[in-house]
């Protein structure tokens, strides 16, 4: 009894959401009509300009108006055909409350994991784990937001949430070849899915969304299954298999073989951005194997520094030391009086 009462409450929430869809559709028609009206008024203005140009024998101006009309007509016919398609769609008939209650009863029978949140106005179905071409994507929660039904013609009022995500290696927001940022790209199912929602056929809606999730269209995925486990090089973006990727310890990113090298001193893999070319020996080294020269403060590999000095600074110091020693060993010249040489 309590279950039936809850079902009726939920059916009422759905009914109100469907009324919102109908209102949204009418509002959308109004906007499209205003757009058609605006485009028509532009045609009237062009007709006026064309008549003036002809009257004054401004042939070049008349041609310019004609060119504009030709361009506008292409746009106009496109918008007109879209509008015609939109208004000629089946009239949205809102189902009666008992039909919606039956729909919910059907949901309970068909989907093992069906739940709803009356306060949050959401209905959810959890799919079985999805496996496509031997890649497991885990189960998804299809979460229908009844309070977003009024945006049906602009956005999808539902989210497809990966419960045990196995995202594409190149993009963690792509959790399924046809799901990005929890939004499903419905492809061939777009019109039928929208219509099912418009007409309150919630069960058909969930069946079709699951139908998209359980299939793979290799012609148009966000990330193809072949590339699912391939990583993108952090530097150039080229995808690569895990065997071909190189991890840079310094910046914690993966790189392809073109964008990475290894430290000639400690053999650590390092990306080109984090490696240094020693100005003395010319070899690439990682930051751990470098040090600054105490005198000139230039960075060198540790092997090219002796007692903290690079070769040239060391030589310079030696020269200075030798010169100093020479100075100390030579007797000072005798002081001569002024003007005598």
């Amino acid at each position: 009894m309590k279950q039936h009462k809850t079902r009726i409450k939920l059916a009422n929430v759905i009914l109100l959401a469907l009324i919102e869809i109908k209102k949204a559709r009418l509002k959308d028609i109004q906007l499209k009509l205003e757009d058609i009206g605006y485009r028509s008024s532009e045609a009237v203005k062009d007709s006026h300009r064309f008549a003036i140009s002809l009257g004054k024998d401004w042939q070049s101006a008349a041609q310019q108006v004609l060119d504009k009309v030709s361009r506008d007509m292409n746009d106009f016919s496109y918008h007109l055909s879209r509008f015609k398609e939109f208004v000629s769609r089946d009239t949205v008939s809102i189902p009666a409350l008992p039909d919606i209650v039956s729909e919910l009863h059907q949901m309970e029978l068909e989907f093992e994991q069906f739940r709803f949140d009356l306060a949050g106005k959401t209905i959810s179905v959890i799919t079985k784990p999805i496996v496509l071409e031997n890649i497991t994507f885990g189960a998804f929660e299809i979460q229908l937001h009844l309070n977003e039904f009024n945006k049906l013609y602009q956005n999808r009022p539902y989210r497809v949430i990966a419960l045990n995500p196995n995202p594409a290696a190149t993009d963690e927001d792509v959790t399924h070849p046809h799901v990005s940022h929890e939004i499903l790209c419905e492809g061939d199912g777009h019109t039928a899915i929208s219509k099912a929602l418009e007409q309150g056929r919630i069960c058909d809606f969930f069946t079709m969304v699951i139908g998209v999730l359980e299939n793979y269209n290799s012609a148009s995925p966000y990330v193809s299954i072949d590339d699912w486990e391939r990583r993108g090089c952090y530097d150039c973006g080229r995808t690569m298999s895990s065997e071909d990727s190189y991890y840079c310890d310094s910046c914690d990113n993966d790189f392809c073989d073109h964008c990475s090298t290894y430290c000639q001193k400690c053999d650590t893999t390092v990306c080109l951005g984090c490696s240094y070319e020693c100005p003395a020996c010319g070899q690439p080294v990682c930051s751990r194997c470098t040090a600054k020269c105490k005198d000139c403060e230039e960075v060198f590999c540790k092997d090219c520094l002796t007692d903290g000095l690079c070769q040239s600074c060391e030589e310079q110091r030696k020269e200075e030391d030798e010169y100093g020693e020479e100075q100390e060993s030579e007797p000072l010249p005798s002081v001569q009086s002024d003007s005598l040489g």
Partner: protein
Amino acid sequence: MRILYINNDGAGFADYLEIAENTTVEQFFKIKMSGANASDYMIRVNRQPVPKDYILQENDRVTITPTKIEGAVLSS
């Protein structure tokens, strides 16, 4: 005999139809979805799955829903 037919394939379709008496679900599917494979669709009558030899009755509600739909990035 009149039935309510809801086809969720392609652009979708929902309307009342006149059909011959003693039409089975299998025959109806073949007429309406010629060339399609029944295993790629969920066929329900009055919200329930039915055997293919089920004979359609006056005012039945027949729903044909594809279960294999190709998603795509470029949908409107």
